[in-house]
């Protein structure tokens, strides 16, 4: 690659420094590749929007928004999804922050073994625990309850949460904990008054990711909900299809519902993107 002299960031010429020292051709090739990659994500969504507008145009969207499909409104599915998502996020954030604090700031026998066992569960696929989960939730009377879905979701997200929170907690200098300890704070007060407020970026990031992942979960609601009123937005993709036929009208409505069902997760991501990037990056640098 050729090395080129370029003005620095903030220079009066307005150019920025390309720290990879790429040539003009390199930059064009890279931009083209990025555009092609983004098409893979954008084209299916555009196709759904296009098909939703083929027959009846925007009326398909109005029908989905103001009507119901097979006895359930899209608003009800949003509500169900968000209730589960916030329960899930609350569980994950609460337990991960406690675990992260404990793993990072306390020494106890078997600490590292426990930590690595926790991380091993990152590799466990949800499908492998479906059958036992089915029976466990039945025995506990959690079938057809929001908590019954939020709990197993949280169990699968927790290893990541613990990893993130421990990494973040280790960047918080021990002096803060020690200062509070000398100031006569109990362990719980230190956790509540010092650790939690200082972990805000990581907690927001973990919370946002947890909400997003739960909104996208199709498997657990499908397995554990039998009542129609409990249908979540992700699950509704399939359930709506059962009620809508192959007529042009229904195909339009179905595609409109597909686009609308993707909206909550998109809104959460767009709103929470700054927290996600800030929180994940925060664990990487020790100050």
């Amino acid at each position, binding site marked *: 690659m050729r090395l080129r002299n370029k003005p620095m960031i903030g220079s009066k010429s307005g150019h920025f420094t390309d720290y990879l020292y790429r040539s003009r051709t390199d930059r064009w090739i890279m931009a083209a590749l990025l555009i092609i990659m983004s098409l893979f994500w954008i084209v299916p969504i555009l196709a759904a929007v296009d098909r939703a507008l083929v027959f009846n145009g925007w009326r398909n969207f109005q029908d989905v928004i103001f009507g119901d499909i097979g006895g359930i409104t899209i608003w009800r599915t949003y509500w169900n999804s968000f209730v589960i998502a916030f329960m899930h996020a609350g569980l994950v954030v609460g337990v991960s922050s406690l675990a992260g604090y404990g793993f990072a700031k306390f020494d106890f026998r078997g600490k590292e073994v426990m930590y690595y066992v926790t991380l091993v569960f990152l590799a466990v696929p949800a499908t492998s625990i479906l059958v036992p989960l089915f029976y466990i939730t039945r025995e506990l009377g959690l079938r057809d309850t929001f908590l019954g879905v939020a709990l197993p979701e949280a169990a699968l997200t927790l290893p990541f949460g613990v990893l993130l929170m421990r990494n973040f907690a280790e960047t918080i200098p021990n002096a803060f904990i*020690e200062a*509070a300890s000398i*100031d*006569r704070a109990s362990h719980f007060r230190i956790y509540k008054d010092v650790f939690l407020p200082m972990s805000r970026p990581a907690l927001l990031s973990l919370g946002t990711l947890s909400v997003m992942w739960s909104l996208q979960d199709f498997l657990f609601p499908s397995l554990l909900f039998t009542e129609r009123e409990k249908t979540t937005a992700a699950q509704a993709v399939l359930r709506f299809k059962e009620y809508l036929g192959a007529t042009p009208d229904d195909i339009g409505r179905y595609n409109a519902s597909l686009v609308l069902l993707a909206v909550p997760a998109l809104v959460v991501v767009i709103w929470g993107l700054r927290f996600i990037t800030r929180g994940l990056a925060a664990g990487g640098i020790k100050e």
Partner: protein
Amino acid sequence: MATVALDNVTKIYTGDTPSVANVSLTIGNGEFLALLGPSGCGKSTLLRMIAGLETVTSGELIINDRPVSGVHPRDRNIAMVFQNYALYPHMTIRENMEYPLKLQKVEKKSRNLKVEEVASLLEIREELDRKPDSLSGGQRQRVAMGRALVREPAVFLMDEPLSNLDARLRIQMRTEIVVLQRKLGITTVYVTHDQVEAMTMADRIVVINKGRVQQIGPPTEIYGWPANLFVAGFMGSPPMNFLQPEQSSRGVRMNGRKTAAPGHPDSRHVVVGIRPEDIHLGQADPDELSLHGTVAAVETLGAETLCHIATDVTVLTVEAGEVIPAAPGRNMLVVRMPGYRVDLQDKPVRLRADRNAVRFFDAESGRAMHLDSEDQFGPDMKGGLGLRRFKQVNDDRDGASLDGRPTGRQPQEKGNSK
């Protein structure tokens, strides 16, 4: 206010090598004691043990006659200022300062009054509603002290609190801390690797190396009468010049002149130490030490000049406890002289040093000879500053300053463990 006593305090993390070994000392009521030593010498570990942030492997820690080795930090009635200040970034300065009082369940009105009072004392009242990240280094330092002061602790611990400040601010804060400490009279233990801080601030200095106390004493004594080669080399910038006397069976001699009374068994086992400021230009009187050489380099510092003088005398360096002669042709004496003396560059010079300013060390043990026997010094050595006092202190012949026992000089000291 309180006294703090350490009795044979030892800290071992792993293996057999102690990070802090058998430290015994007593800190008097209202005393300002500095723990001084190079990085990794164990001074911060010692402070953290006093704070309760590290456990004590063996020995006993006593605050106000109460053994506290197993007591939680919150129950020791101490306050600590950390190197990075440890101000809670999400709280305002007011919240930071009142946090310890809040934990003590002091009611809001009293909390406010106390915070305002301490903030006025430290001149940070205007900053009370700001967050720590909007303050300068000096202001943060004051807030950290304020947070410690609101609790009215019995003992004030400071772990290199000025090391994050720039040079000018450090000098200013140094004075402020000393004035405040004198005003409040709180027993203070101050950790630093900066000898200037220790010299200017402390009532007494504890010099530590490799976890062991090397010497305890007032700054003038530590500087003037170092107990061993480590202290002599560590204190002072530039450090003391170490010279090898001539091989002679007739006592310690330099350039054919006796530098001390005969009696020492073998001059090969003696290291002669002279501070750079104790060597002067000029012809030596018969009772003075005489040296000569050529000025190889001149460093001008404004008010004074450091001359590096190539000499025939063998100059020694002390590294990792070993006395090593300089390579041939690299025998450089450092001399500090007043004024701006670039004119001396490359000039041959004659040097003289008062015998009272010369210190002698055993090359094997590194121990200062004035600690062992008065007889080994010439008559003119006996009247030297501090020597008599030192002899009194060490009359127990155990070399108190070397093994970490208190020198017993401070009137407020009690519990001189023996």
